[in-house]
């Protein structure tokens, strides 16, 4: 039975299904083909007016059912993309009927939004027009608003749809959210609490207010005239990340359960590590301690040495700060000869709550096909970033183990180690 347990005596965790929705396409195949081709999914925003916005570009997923109607709210968008990705993953895993394990959903916080607020405000008048008490009065009987914007609403509807077991668990760790959802599933299977888990990361926050808020933090690229060239991780002229959206789903299963039912094993989740930073709300400690700690903990949790990592799927947001700190982490963990590292965000932008899950799927595809996706827009190398970032063109390489980094605002850092199927 030792072939079913890892170095720490825990259940080995297999991936038996994957699903993707990204600005490069619907489904794993289309998104992965776009990524290997070095195609940018960033474009001018068409969903809402962009006057007075510093940044008017984003990665956008155009949902067919949205045509000819007002844009979906964030929870509607998140739920739809999560459901598309989950349906693809569950189908690939060959699971029919109710899903035999819990749901872990990484998602953004949601709230009543401007279209709803303005719709309510239009039904108020007199001196109290537009006031919260008047809008509350106008919202009487609107159980639909309540259920749409509850934090637990999306998880409940997805759990209902896929028949997952137990309470759906929703998690947010900022830009590490998608990785956290996989880590929760990994742990539940490792400790024998579940034989399978449906892990999803989904994001749908491209809307005026979130964009303005990120702009106020000076986090976004404003290269509005050249959308496809705006996301420039690890490059000298990088100036910020590009907001994006999408979803990924992974079916995790104990290797034992996957083999018992004859499912195809697509890869393994070998380990996870996390570390919180106590330095600043939006910046890492200059010593890189939490980033380095998360990377090292993940590698150790997988029972590996740093030298056994063949490739790193970067957090690589394209902000001056992140890329500098990630470089520091790479050199600290891997020494003078770090493995190649590339940023999917150069093409799909920063999918925030979905990023960790989307990039875990891309990491598994990297192993499967022996192809490193590129970091595009690499025109002027940054001399302070002495890394092989797989510039501009995908490259063949034999990859057995990938470290996937996710570092969040608020100091929440999660790293995953993905491996080839046994």
């Amino acid at each position, binding site marked *: 039975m030792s072939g079913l347990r890892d170095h720490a005596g825990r259940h080995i965790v297999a991936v038996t299904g994957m699903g993707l929705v990204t600005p490069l396409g619907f489904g794993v195949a289309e998104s992965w083909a776009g990524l290997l081709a070095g195609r940018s999914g960033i474009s001018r925003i068409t969903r*809402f*007016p962009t*006057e007075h916005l510093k940044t008017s570009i984003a990665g956008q997923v155009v949902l067919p059912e949205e045509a000819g109607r007002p844009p979906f709210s964030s929870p509607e968008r998140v739920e739809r993309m999560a459901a598309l990705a989950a349906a693809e993953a569950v189908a690939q895993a060959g699971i029919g009927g109710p899903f035999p394990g819990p749901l872990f959903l990484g998602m953004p*916080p949601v*709230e*009543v939004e401007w279209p709803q*607020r*303005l719709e309510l*405000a*239009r039904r108020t008048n007199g001196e109290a*027009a*537009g*006031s*919260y*008490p008047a*809008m509350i009065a106008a*919202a*009487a*009987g*609107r159980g639909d*608003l*309540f*259920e749409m914007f*509850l*934090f*637990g609403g999306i*998880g*409940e509807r997805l*759990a209902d749809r896929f028949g997952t077991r*137990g*309470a*759906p*668990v*929703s*998690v*947010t*760790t*900022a830009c590490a959210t998608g990785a956290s959802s996989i880590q*929760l599933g990994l*742990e539940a299977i490792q*400790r024998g*609490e579940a034989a399978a888990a449906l892990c999803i990361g989904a994001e749908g926050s491209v809307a*005026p*207010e979130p964009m*303005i*808020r990120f702009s*106020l*933090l000076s986090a976004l690229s404003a290269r509005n005239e050249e959308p496809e060239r705006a996301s420039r991780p690890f490059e000298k002229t990088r100036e910020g990340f590009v907001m994006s959206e999408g979803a990924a789903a992974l079916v995790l299963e104990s290797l034992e359960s996957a083999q018992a039912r004859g499912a195809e094993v697509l890869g393994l989740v070998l380990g996870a590590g*996390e*570390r*919180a*930073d*106590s330095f*600043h*709300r*939006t910046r890492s400690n200059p010593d890189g301690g939490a980033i380095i700690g998360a990377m090292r903990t993940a590698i150790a949790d997988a029972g590996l040495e740093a030298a056994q990592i063949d490739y790193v799927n970067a957090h690589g947001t394209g902000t001056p700060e992140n890329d500098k700190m990630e470089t520091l982490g790479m050199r600290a963990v891997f020494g003078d000869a770090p493995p190649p590292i590339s940023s999917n965000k150069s093409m799909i932008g920063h999918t925030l709550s979905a990023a960790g899950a989307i990039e875990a799927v891309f990491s598994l595809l990297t192993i499967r096909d022996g192809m490193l996706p590129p970091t595009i827009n690499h025109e002027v190398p940054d001399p302070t970033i002495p890394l092989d970032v797989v510039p501009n063109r995908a490259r063949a390489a034999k990859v057995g183990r990938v470290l996937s980094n996710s570092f969040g*605002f*608020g*100091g*929440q850092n999660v790293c995953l180690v993905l491996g080839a199927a046994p």
Partner: protein
Amino acid sequence: MSEPVWITGIGLVSSLGEGVEPHLAALRAPDAKPVVDAASFAPFPIHPLPSLALDAQIPKKGDQRQMEPWQRLGTYAAGLALDHAGARGLAGEMHLLVAAGGGERDVALDEAICRELAALPPGEAGPLLNERLANGLRPTLFLAQLSNLLAGNISIVHGVTGSSRTFMGEESAAADAVRIATARLAEGRGETALVGGAYAAGRWDMLLLFSPSGGLLRGDWVPLAGRPGGGMVTGSLGAFLVLETARHARARGARGLAAIGAVRNGAARRRGGDTARASALALAEGLPLRPGHAVFSGASGVAGALEEERAFLDTLTEAGPVRFTTDLLGHGMEASFPANLALAALALQAGLVPQALVTGFGLWRGEALAVLEPVGEEAEG
């Protein structure tokens, strides 16, 4: 590998006050009265925040300015829990699991924009909305609003950095957090965890979310027993627990307030036969409840869930007293489950009850049960 897990510290802030004393006093007094503000958010009564000496737990003014009330409340309560457990020195390796709702909006800005834009056709409203937001939003408010930034602030202010996870989903989020924290410690992934949540009542933005459910009590406050159609009164509540393996607590000479016997949660679809009562009955299967166990109910007051919970409680054999703590504290959403665990731990430690069953029936979804046991004499030695 299954190591016993104790509660070794609690940090509790409610409209009754802060820390152990006011809450233990309320548990001892059968006629304890809540603190109610019926005017400020009429027609909705709320249980307000007590005044807090923030400097005691959040010494830097810069940190205080970077937070809104719910984050300050949670960060403050988290600090109380660390102090109560004598666990300041353990923060660096401590896991952090927070149950969080949405952060405060700038209500004055929202209202000004709504007033101006409601009169315009949608085509004109869009660009103007961008302009008003770009000029009106404060950069710090974004960070005060992000749900995971309560955890971020606790890491920054108290140095809790072992790990950081924020759970969402109203009451259920807290049950997830406590259950997962307990499981991780029991299986040997770490020795200590700080787990809890905060809810600042008296927020128009949250009342706009919850009022369309029809579940909020309107008018004068009355206890749960006097609300024939049910009704939820939101309460300001910050509640954090320090969880610790018994092995680790013994080794450092820390006292256990209570031992966690079980934490379970589920989510009925609440339609057809898939009821909250059936969900709770399934969760209760095999729980080691003894005659005379006290019940600390996390009922929100919302009618449907309350009926389901009462029907479930009726099935318990030889239960002791049932306390609906919303009558003292109000309903604090993500903070309710940890607050009830804290109250139960206090009652156990004071010898007021022999064993405690803590319930959580979410206003919309989610059922949770926990059993707390006294920490035995031999265990304390």
